[in-house]
């Protein structure tokens, strides 16, 4: 890979079809750049992510996993925030057990127009991961 790509960490983003996907798409439309090693897997709702998927991503070589959560905008109801928070907590514990630094999993609510916030999150997460894993 070219030098420019060596400077970025591999980040897997779980984003949601109705809420955060539109924000990530709009970031592209607005040409708000973020590292090209950020990859998105789209799912219906952030509260449906299995901790085993996240652990698998680290096992396979992803530096970080980011959950672009529905937050209070979730079309499936208010319980999403609490359930997503719960699965993140559970995954953090599993990561500790496996000796994976919990800070490599981040979550933030990304609403359907939160493009700038998404890009900011990706840039700071990338910097953090490069500093701690690839320094």
């Amino acid at each position, binding site marked *: 890979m070219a030098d420019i*790509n060596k400077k970025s960490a591999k980040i897997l983003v779980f984003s949601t079809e109705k809420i955060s*996907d539109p924000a990530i798409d709009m970031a592209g439309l607005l*040409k708000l750049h973020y590292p090209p090693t950020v*990859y998105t897997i789209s799912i*219906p709702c952030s509260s449906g992510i299995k901790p*085993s998927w996240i652990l698998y991503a680290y096992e396979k070589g992803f530096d970080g996993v980011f959950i672009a959560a529905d937050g209070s905008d979730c*079309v*499936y109801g208010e319980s999403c925030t609490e359930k997503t928070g719960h699965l993140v907590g559970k995954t953090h514990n599993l990561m500790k057990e496996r000796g994976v630094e919990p800070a490599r999993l981040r979550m933030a609510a990304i609403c359907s127009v939160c493009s700038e916030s998404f890009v900011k999150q990706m840039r700071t997460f990338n910097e953090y991961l490069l500093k701690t894993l690839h320094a």
Partner: protein
Amino acid sequence: MKKKKIGVYICHCGGNISDYVDVEKVRQAVEGDDIVFLAKTTMFACSDSNQRDMVEDIKANDLDGVVVASCSPKLHLLTFRNVSVRADLNKYTYVHANIREQASWAHSDNKMGATEKAIHLVKAAIAKSRYADALETNKIKAIKAVAVIGAGVAGMKAALSLAEKECDVILIEKESFVGGRVAQWDSLSTTTETGKEMVKRLYNELVKHENITILTNCEVIENKGSVGNMLLKIKKTPRYIGGTCHPEDLKRAIEVCPVEVPDEFNFRLTTRKAIYKNYPSEYPQTPVIDIKNCTRCGACEKVCPAIDFSEKEEILEFSVGSVLMATGFDSYTPAYGEFGYATSENVITLPQFKRLIDTQSDKLIYKGKEINNIAYIYCVGSRQTDGENTYCSRNCCTSTIHAAVTAKTKFTDINNYHFNRGLRTYGKQEILYADSLSAGDIYLQSYEDGLPTVTLEGKKTIVKINDILTNGREIEVEADLVVLVTGMVPRADNKVGSLFKIPKGRDKFYNEVHMKLRPVETVIDGVTIAGACQGPKNIAESVNSALSAATKSYSILSKGELETDPLVATIDPEKCTWCGACEAACPFDAILKIEKGTKVIADINNTVCKGCGMCAPVCEPDAVNLIACSSAEIMSMIDALV
């Protein structure tokens, strides 16, 4: 199992993709994959000619599925699903990769990076394609009837629109009379028709339609089934008045009734009797006995033969295909002491002020005193920086200015002082603002950190502000009446919303699927929303949304049959140990406990499951997977992305 054979198409999108992503390199990177039978680049994947070529390719080569790498699936997922269908493939065998918004545009600063990313994204789509099997949509019979809940302007207009489409309508109103809030407003902004006239006109149109059943004093208490066939149980509270009541008899019955309770129609400014009508021309025309407050003294029975205390509560049942929710809003109730509310007798709310000016003439009198100086304090309960209601209630600036202009025209010696936070009389409503300025109304403004204060000095009520329009000068007004411009809040009674499990947004009003693209649908299939139950709206906006919700509700049922998405949860009966965790996590009651052979396990009701997946992560033995989002699929995509 036969190995899959798929086709992959990589789009240039003119140059939108190929200016930054080397599409030929992407093609070469994926053509060797064992299931990829053909891989092509195309100038415009969505063009008619390419769609035709795809159909030919699929048929000629007997492909099992296709992947198109192009723009966002929001734009063309359906296009390419339809191409698959035209080539006799099942639409769920199609998989999309977004290499425009998420590769070429997002990384237009780094062509190499964008190309590498596009390769990974297409590989992940191919990985997903291995699992993308043909799925049967669930076909169910649809009953061509819609229950409209709430008979305010939104519900009434929706009912009329549905009836014209030859659809049966059950219009269900909780109160004893139709019209909702609009019946409470006499003069309205931007129209010469009064609220009562509007309600009367709509009611007269409703009763002309044989396919509309109007139910008042009725509430939905149970809902079974799902889109296409929902069985509603409705509780009907009696009016205790049989047949028609002669107007003279009614007048006497009201006179003799000894009970007096605060009149909610007049926002507790006045009182009413236990037997009542809110205003003479109200619909339905039969009055009602408020049985909660009636002492059963029998005084009214003696003067009006139509009164019948033997009437019993009834439970009605209706089967409908869709539900249109139009339950409206409540007005914000200020906190005790908020701008002098409830602590100063000269402080009232905007809805109360509307009733006050509607019910008086010549002089404006409140609590026995003539009113001359009126101070309006805007945005009370809206645009809060400390409270939860951060939204703007949209309609109150206009309604306040309209009420102020009306008061000045109707009564003598009125001076209006508007303590606002920046006016929002958008669109045509701006004319009203101009009218009020030329009538001499005074506007004083502050930001959220310098709100006006209301203080009592002896018998005087003083409203003070540091007016930002005059360089922060402290200005005070001695007000005879302070009107708190209270905004709209969701109905306090949300039983019906919980019954249908309608999600609420950040503002706690009912939430649509997408503000712009699917503005009247909810995530609950078959349930649409209209009017102010979705958020602050004026009448025109409520009616607009009612007409589109009516069309949407009808379009679901118009064919008499409907297809539901098969992307639901599945349970592995071998792994499930029935712990009940998934049942507790499902917000839609889609999970049932069943016996299978000797085992008790969880089972999914496919017509109720929304495919959110909330049940999947909570299952300890990992027995739950979502179709098209199973662990195997996600993990194979992760493999392709690393």
